[in-house]
């Protein structure tokens, strides 16, 4: 499971970094989304990977059978914030497209 998760994070980060270095705003936004998925999975990963372990604490419960709840709450916050800022970026992207007539990140095409 660790291997699958780390390959997933690696592939998404690699593609994300490649895409945010591309000159089109659409590529950049897809790249940022991929990167944020990778980061969210990464946060999950630092809590330790466990299957079928609830993040709940009862009296007398064995801590080793439970999942760490903190990374889960961190991930939830990160998802919400990441979603909101990506939506904001989308608005700016459209405004830039409307004002300049091109989807190049610099607002103008490279002279040929």
């Amino acid at each position: 499971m660790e291997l699958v998760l780390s390959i997933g994070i690696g592939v998404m980060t690699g593609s994300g970094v490649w895409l945010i270095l591309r000159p089109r705003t659409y590529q950049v936004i897809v790249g940022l989304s991929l990167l944020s998925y990778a980061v969210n999975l990464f946060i999950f990963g630092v809590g330790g990977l466990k299957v079928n372990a609830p993040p709940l604490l009862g009296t007398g419960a064995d801590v080793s059978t439970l999942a760490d709840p903190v990374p889960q709450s961190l991930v939830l916050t990160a998802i919400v914030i990441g979603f909101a800022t990506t939506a904001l970026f989308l608005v700016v992207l459209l405004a830039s497209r409307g004002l300049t007539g091109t989807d190049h990140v610099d607002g103008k095409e490279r002279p040929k």
Partner: protein
Amino acid sequence: MTGLSHHLIVAPILVPFVAAAILLFIDERSRVTKAMISLGATVIMLTVALLLLHMANGMENAAGNAGGVYLLGNWPAPFGIVLVLDRLSAMMLMLTATLAIPALAFSLARWHNSGAHFHTLFQLLLMGLNGAFLTGDLFNLFVFFEVMLAASYGLLLHGSGQLRVKAGLHYLVINLASALLFLVGVSLVYGTAGTLNMADLALRLPELAPDRRVFLEAGLAVLGVVFLIKAGVWPLNFWLPTAYSAAAAPVAGIFAILSKLGIYILLRLVMLTSGDGTALTEVARTVLLFGGLATITFGAIGVLASQALGRLAGYSVLVSTGTLLTIIGFGGQASASGALFYMVSSTLTIAAFFLLIELIERGQDAGASVLAVSMEVYGDADEDDADDEIGVTMPGTMAVLAVCFSACAILLSGLPPLSGFVAKFAILSGMIGSGAESDAAIGPAGWVSATLLILSGLCALIAMTRSGIRTFWASIEGTVPRVLVIEVAPVLMLLTLTLVLTIGAGPVMRYMQETTATLSEPRNYINAVFEARRIGQEAARP
């Protein structure tokens, strides 16, 4: 400390938050109401900041004084989220509030009309800043960072126009990417140290097993990169001059403190982990020193090369960042208290300069200005100016502007008699002068830093003289800009504050020295956080 005054600590977050929420419900057309609410909230914030400053100043250095720790949700320290008020955070709160009032007053002349929700975004920006200064928890810091950034995206785009949208796009992508890095850093720290509380982290740091330490150090390094991006260290700062010079004047004025937020966190983390006794702090200091030196050099070259005044101011922000980073990296209490003084002085100066630039460029030909877009906004605004007179058009406008401009030049280059000189003098005497606490020989780092510091002042002087002559003496059009009293008053207010800072340099420097003395004893901070009592618990004790 008990009672109501203790709850003041959370007020700098709540006041702008409530104000922003109320402002959302008021229609865009009732501008006066909105402006009054926004200004009122900011004045309350300034009062609270003053009280908190007084409170922090009264605190003793001795360990065990937990008066400045506020337990949100009444959970004890490593489990719940804490707000920590000490001298440094109180000073930053004060600086934010002092900067916010002139920027807001300036915007009342016309800027707050040129887009929707200006006041709401402004208040949210203040909330994010105050929260980030107060928090004692890394993840909470991330949340406040994002609140501040989200508001700053909106404010940067305020007034619209192609230039702003382009600069805003770059600013957004840079900050989204750095937010992701922030998350990576925070989760690495949590994964290895098992805590996000800064005090708890400093406590656990020396006890970690070496194989986990590697990851923790990597996490802290990633976090450091995020704050360096925010502060604008070379080579992560190419977005900064463009973004700051594209922003509307009052927005750029308040943005002057955004880069100082990165510096604040770096200073806090470096100081907290300095009790660790390993190579970690040494490495961090070296990076900061060299990054700072490179940033000063880059900023000074940029200042010399700038054609437009807006870019000149943007590069001045970089010089200021570089100076502060160099001194944090250099270490030493005497120069660090000078650096804090410099931080206050340069933030006020740069904010005043950003506001002033807009007034000066208003008189110039739209084609001659790089800020052609904002000139278009004025073209529209000038027409309804006659019926919508807020203040009196001043006679001798150019003279007032020229005086302000020369004051800015003196402050930026660090010449006497204003506070820029006092700040640089304090820094240099801490580095190479009699103020240095050890008798050890001054190393090459000290000499290089001191030389670059003085040279950057010279560059600022040359650039400011050149632009001053071009603007005031050799102006081609010779048109006098229409400037309202309410627009020039904030600039004068900020410049007067630097004068006050010069006259009151003694008490202010004493405060800064106490601040650095407190910071250099991380045990104070850690003990204060852990000894904070829950409210119920406190009542139960005799």
